[in-house]
């Protein structure tokens, strides 16, 4: 997630009016252009530093060779990216499917929330990375532990944000609904859910950036394929070029997941306030 660069503050030397030109041309570029330029700049600097400073390639290869490596190993990388994405997608989807109904139930009855919520919070103090080896003991190698770790990492932000969303319904809206004699079901579907959607999406967005992390952690310990596994192998072989190539691909995957969520949000919430200001999502596209 790269923040869209803010317009650089125009230095105003005293007495001299600031030049108006850059201020007028900047906003015309598409929103994501700024981030792309910044990213390109980063690669250029990296390339220059490595080449001018004569950094040995086994410590830090220049980006050009990293991209070449991605290209030449594309079949290998695509296959492993596919394996990782299966875990990402399944774990992420599972976390959405479990978290939202769970939060909905918690929101309906205060006593359930008071009972379960502290347990949820407590469960978050267990480092999920440390759970990974246990997952292997319980579920063996392969897809299941990866999905479960992804799920465990993604699930909490969605529950918390969704719960906040369900709680955000104002007293007046509740009153309005009651004065129309709505059923509990309609109260939920027509009032609570739509009011919670912005928060639900906020939670899903946070989770979307964690989903790839979860799958990679799973692959560190519990897999024999996938980008996380190959990263460990490449590290073991001191193949820094491949390691960095995999990191680049992983971050592209992360951005991809985020972008999908972002598009869904735009389609589902045309009315939502953040759409009018449009600051948060710019980096994902």
């Amino acid at each position, binding site marked *: 997630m790269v923040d869209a660069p803010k317009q650089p503050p125009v230095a105003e030397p005293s007495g001299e009016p600031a030049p108006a030109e850059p201020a007028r041309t900047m906003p015309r570029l598409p929103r994501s252009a700024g981030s792309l330029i910044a990213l390109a700049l980063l690669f250029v600097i990296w390339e220059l530093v490595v080449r001018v400073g004569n950094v040995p390639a086994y410590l830090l290869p220049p980006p050009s060779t990293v991209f070449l490596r991605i290209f030449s190993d594309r079949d290998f990388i695509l296959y492993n990216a596919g394996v990782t994405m299966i875990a990402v997608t399944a774990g992420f989807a599972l976390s959405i499917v479990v978290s939202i109904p769970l939060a909905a139930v918690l929101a309906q009855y205060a006593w359930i929330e008071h009972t379960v919520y502290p347990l949820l919070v407590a469960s978050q103090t267990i480092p999920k990375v440390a759970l990974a080896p246990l997952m292997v003991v319980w579920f063996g190698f392969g897809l299941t532990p990866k999905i479960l770790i992804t799920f465990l990492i993604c699930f909490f932000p969605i529950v918390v944000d969704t719960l906040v969303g369900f709680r955000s319904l104002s007293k*007046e809206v509740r*009153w309005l609904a009651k*004065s129309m004699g709505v059923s509990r079901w309609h109260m939920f579907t027509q009032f609570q859910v*739509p*009011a919670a*959607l912005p928060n639900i999406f906020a939670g899903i967005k946070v989770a979307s950036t964690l989903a790839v992390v979860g799958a990679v952690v799973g692959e560190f310990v519990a897999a024999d394929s996938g980008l996380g596994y190959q990263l460990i192998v490449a590290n073991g072989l001191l193949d820094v070029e491949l390691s960095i190539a995999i990191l680049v691909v992983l971050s592209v995957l992360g951005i991809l997941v985020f972008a999908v969520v972002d598009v869904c949000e735009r389609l589902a*919430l045309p*009315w939502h306030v953040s759409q009018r200001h449009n600051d948060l999502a710019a980096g994902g596209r």
Partner: protein
Amino acid sequence: MTRVVIDNLSKVYKTRRDRIHALDRISLTIGEGEFVSVVGPSGCGKSTLMSLVSGLEFPTSGEVSLDGVPIRAPITDVGIVFQTDVLLEWRTVLSNVMIQAEMRKLDRATYRARAEELLRTTGLDGFGGKYPHELSGGMRQRASICRALVHDPSLLLMDEPFGALDALTREMMVLELHRLWLATRKSILFITHDIEEAVFLADRVVVMTPRPGRIAEIITPNLPEARDMRIKQIPEFGAAVGRIRTIFEETGILKTI
């Protein structure tokens, strides 16, 4: 026939630190087809009174009954205009109005025509497809008035419905409401802090004093039924407005200079 009977109603809000006596022994009736205005300074318990009459909150003591039945749950044959517009941000203006028909399972086509008609009379023609955030504060308030009217309730509770409107639109809406009342004879409880508006619209004006909210006096202006702005010239109108001002001066709400 009397529709709403408010009998010795008191409401105390208990907060963590203190108890706020919002209403103190209010007794009041609203007759079939009667228009009752409530005026009073900010914080005197007007909105509290409305929430008790609508059954959305419950009194500390005393009772409200509707058509002879004590209110123990939110009443539903009612149109409520809340002090804030309470529009649903995720619905367009038209569908904010139509939610009444949807939740009450009324015929969509019939009520859609009604909703569009209401939007027209309140000057929101062409805004039905817009989202609330695309409207001005006054337009939002008018949309929420349409929502309170669309299902044709026999009882209307309106909490400062014209508060966010400019003077001209306000006058237009006051006349519209008066016309609607003449035509439909709904029972209306109308809360305002505008003395002239209260007198212009009402059969009776309830004047309240703050902390704890009490009824200072109930005034019957005795104005002719059908009214337009010229009525503000007749002596009874001036007398009623003058009497309310005097009450506010006596209770120290208005300062005589």
